[in-house]
C-alpha cells in the first residue's frame, strides 16, 4: 500500500503540486489524467523521489520514504517506466536488464541472466539479448524497459506516459504487455493520454488540474458521469481529437 500525504512541490516560486492526498491499495491500477502542465508527471515522479517533494510524505507499506536513509531500499520496490524508454545505450539488452539486480545483490549473475532470458522469451525478444538499444524499435525498447523494471520484483510500478513516444502501430504491443502484468496482480500507477486505454484498463482514475486532485472515481464515473466542469471540458476536448 502506498500512501501519499499532503504532497507539495515547488519549482522556484511556481507551485506545481499543492497538497495531494492519495492512498493506493495493493492491486489498484490507477490512471492519472489531466491537461498538460497540470503536475501529473511531477506527481508520479515524486512517488520514487526522482522529484524531491517540497513537503509532505510518501509512505510505502508503512515506511516513510526518506531521501537520506532508505531511499534505495524503497526504490527497489517501486519500478518505473519512462516515456523515452531510457535504456542504457552503452549496454546490450541483457546487460540493461541484469545490471541493477546484480549490482544490488538481489541475484547473482547466472540467476539474473536466467531470469532475464525467461522474461525476454515471454515478450519474444530473446534473440535480441545481445543487441544494443539503438538497434531496436521503440516498441521493443519499451517492452525491454518494462521487464528491466520487473526483474527487480517491485511491489508497484509507475508508468510515465509509456506509449506517448511510440509510433501508433507499436502501442498495442506495449499495452498488451501491461495487461499481462496487471493479470498477475501488480499495483500500477499510469500517467497517460491514451484515454481509451485508461478507461478500459484502470480500476480507478484520478483527474489532476493545477496541482490538485479535482476528481477521482471509477473509469465509468470519470468518463461517463464527470461532476466537475474542468473534467467535462477536458474530456470533451480529448474526444474532439
Amino acid at each position, binding site marked *: 500500500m502506498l500512501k501519499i500525504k499532503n504532497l507539495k512541490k515547488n519549482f522556484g516560486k511556481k507551485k506545481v503540486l499543492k497538497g495531494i492526498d492519495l492512498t493506493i491499495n495493493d492491486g489498484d491500477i490507477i490512471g492519472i489524467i489531466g491537461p498538460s502542465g497540470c503536475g501529473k508527471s511531477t506527481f508520479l515522479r515524486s512517488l*520514487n523521489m*526522482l522529484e524531491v517533494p517540497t513537503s509532505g510524505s510518501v509512505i510505502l507499506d508503512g515506511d516513510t520514504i526518506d531521501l537520506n536513509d532508505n531511499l*534505495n*531500499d524503497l*526504490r*527497489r520496490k*517501486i*519500478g*518505473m517506466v*519512462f516515456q*523515452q524508454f*531510457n*535504456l*542504457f*545505450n*552503452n*549496454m546490450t539488452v541483457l546487460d540493461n536488464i541484469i*545490471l*541493477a539486480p546484480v*549490482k*544490488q545483490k538481489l541475484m547473482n549473475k547466472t540467476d539474473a541472466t536466467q531470469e532475464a532470458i525467461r522474461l525476454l522469451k515471454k515478450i519474444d525478444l530473446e534473440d535480441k539479448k545481445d543487441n*544494443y538499444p539503438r538497434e531496436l524499435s521503440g516498441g521493443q525498447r519499451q517492452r525491454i*524497459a518494462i521487464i*528491466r*523494471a520487473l526483474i*527487480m520484483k517491485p511491489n508497484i510500478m509507475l508508468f510515465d506516459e509509456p506509449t506517448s513516444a511510440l509510433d501508433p502501430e507499436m502501442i498495442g504491443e506495449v499495452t498488451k504487455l501491461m495487461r499481462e502484468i496487471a493479470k498477475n496482480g501488480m499495483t500500477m500507477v499510469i500517467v497517460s493520454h491514451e484515454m481509451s486505454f485508461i478507461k478500459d484498463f484502470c480500476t480507478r482514475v484520478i483527474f489532476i488540474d493545477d496541482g490538485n486532485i479535482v476528481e477521482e472515481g471509477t473509469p465509468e464515473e470519470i468518463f461517463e458521469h464527470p461532476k466537475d466542469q474542468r473534467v467535462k471540458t477536458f474530456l470533451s476536448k480529448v474526444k474532439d481529437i
Partner: protein
Amino acid sequence: MKRIFKLLVIMLSIFLLSGCETETKDKLTMVTEAGFYPYEYYSNGEVVGVDRDIVKRIAEYLDLELEIKDVHFDSIISEVKSGKSDIGAAGISYTEERALEVDFTDNYIVSNQVIIVRNDSLINNIDEVSGKIAVQLGTTADSYLSENYPNIELIRENKFLACIEDLRQSKVDAVVMDEVPAKNIMDNTMRILEEPLFSDSYGMIVAKDNTTLLNAANAVINKMKESGEIDAILLKHLESKEETKEEVKESNNIFVKIYNRFYRSVILDGRYKFIITGFKNTLLIALGAVILGILLGTILALIRNFHDNTNKLKILNKLAKLYIDIIRGTPSTLQLMIIYYIIFGSSEVNMILVGIMAFGINSSAYVAEIIRSGLQSVDKGQIEAGYALSLNYRQVMTYIVFPQAIKNILPSLGNEFITLVKETSIGAYIGIVELTKASDIIASRTYDYFFPLILIAIIYLIITFILSQLVALMEKRLKNA
C-alpha cells in the same frame, strides 16, 4: 589498456624515486644559459666555456664541487635569488635593476656590443638604420636599444642565432650583439660595423648578503684578470671551435650539404645524446602530466558535476571553479616558474617532477572541463532510470555515465594531450633538457638553427601521430558505448 596504464605508473614512480638520491658532498651550483659561445656552450654533452672555467676556479678556491645548471636566461636571477643556485655566470651585464635583486662581482670581461648588417647593406652606423633591429631577448643590447632608441622597432628573439637568421632573411636590417660570438659566426653574407654601439662588461651574480661567496669570487676573478688567464681561456675556447669546424668538408652537392648539416647537428660531438635525453624527458613529462592531469581533472569534474546535479558541496565547487579559472587564465610558463621558484623555493627537487607537476596541474583544468562537458552530455533520462532501478550515485556514474561520457570526450581529450606534448617545450625555461632545449643546445654550437628544429619537429610529429592513433584505436573500441 588498464594494464598498460598500471605499468606506466609503476615505471614512472620508479624513475622519480631513483631521482631522489641524496647527495653528500658540498657543491657550488653555477646557473647559466649554455648557448652563449664562448662563455657557455655544450661540448661532448657538458657545459663548458669561459664562465664555467672561471667558476670552476672559484669552486676550487672554496673547496666545493662544481655543479652546473642550464636554464633560460630570464630565469637566472630567480635561480640565484631563490637560492636554487649559488652563482649566476652567463655573460651578465651590470644594470641597476639587476643590482636591486642580486649582488654583482667585479667585472671579469669587458665586451663590445656591435652592429651586424648584411654585406650589401649601406648602413654605416646606428642612425642610418630605418627598419627593424633584431636582439636577443633580455640581453643588454635589448635594454640599451629600448632605452636609447625607442623609435627603432626591435625584434626580440630567444636566441641570438635567430637574430642572425632574421638578418639573413632580410626580416631585419641589423642585429646588435656581443662582439666575440658575433665575430665567430661571421660569414661573407654579413659584416660587423667598425664602431661598437656600446661597451658592456660582464659580472657574475650571487644572492644578496652572500658575502663569503662574493668575496671569494672577486678574489679569484681579480687574480685571473691580473695574470692574463681570462684572456688565455677566451682564446682557448675560440680555438677549440675552429678545430671542430674543420671536420666537415663543404660541398655544393645538395645531398652532401644536407648530410653535412645532419652530421654537424646530430653525429658530431655526440650531439644525438641531447636529442635522446630530450626525447626521454619530453615523453616522461608528457606521460606523467597526462596521468596527473586525468587524476586531478577527474576529481575536479566530479566535484563540479556532483554540485551541478545535487546542489551540494557548494564551497568545494566554488574552489574548483576558481582553480580552473586561474589555471586556464594564466600562462603556463608563469605556472611552471611559480611552482619551481616559489612552491619548491630553495628545496632540492627533481626537475622532471616539477615539469610533471606544472604541466599536469595546467592540463587538469582543461581536462576537468572536458570531462564535465562529457558527463553533462549523457542523457538525463538514463541517469533517472538508473536511480529508479535503485542504483546509487556512484553506481550510476560508474556503469552508465562514465562509459558514455568517455566515448563522447575522447576526441577533445586526445586533442588536449597532443597540445600537452608540445607544451612541454617551455620546460626549457627552468632548465629541463626536453626536445626543444636539446635543439637549442645543438643550434648554439652549430649556428644552424633550422636543422635541429626540423629534426625535433619530426619527433614531435611522430609522438603526436602515435598518440592520435591510440586515441582513434580507443574510439573504435568504444564504438558501442
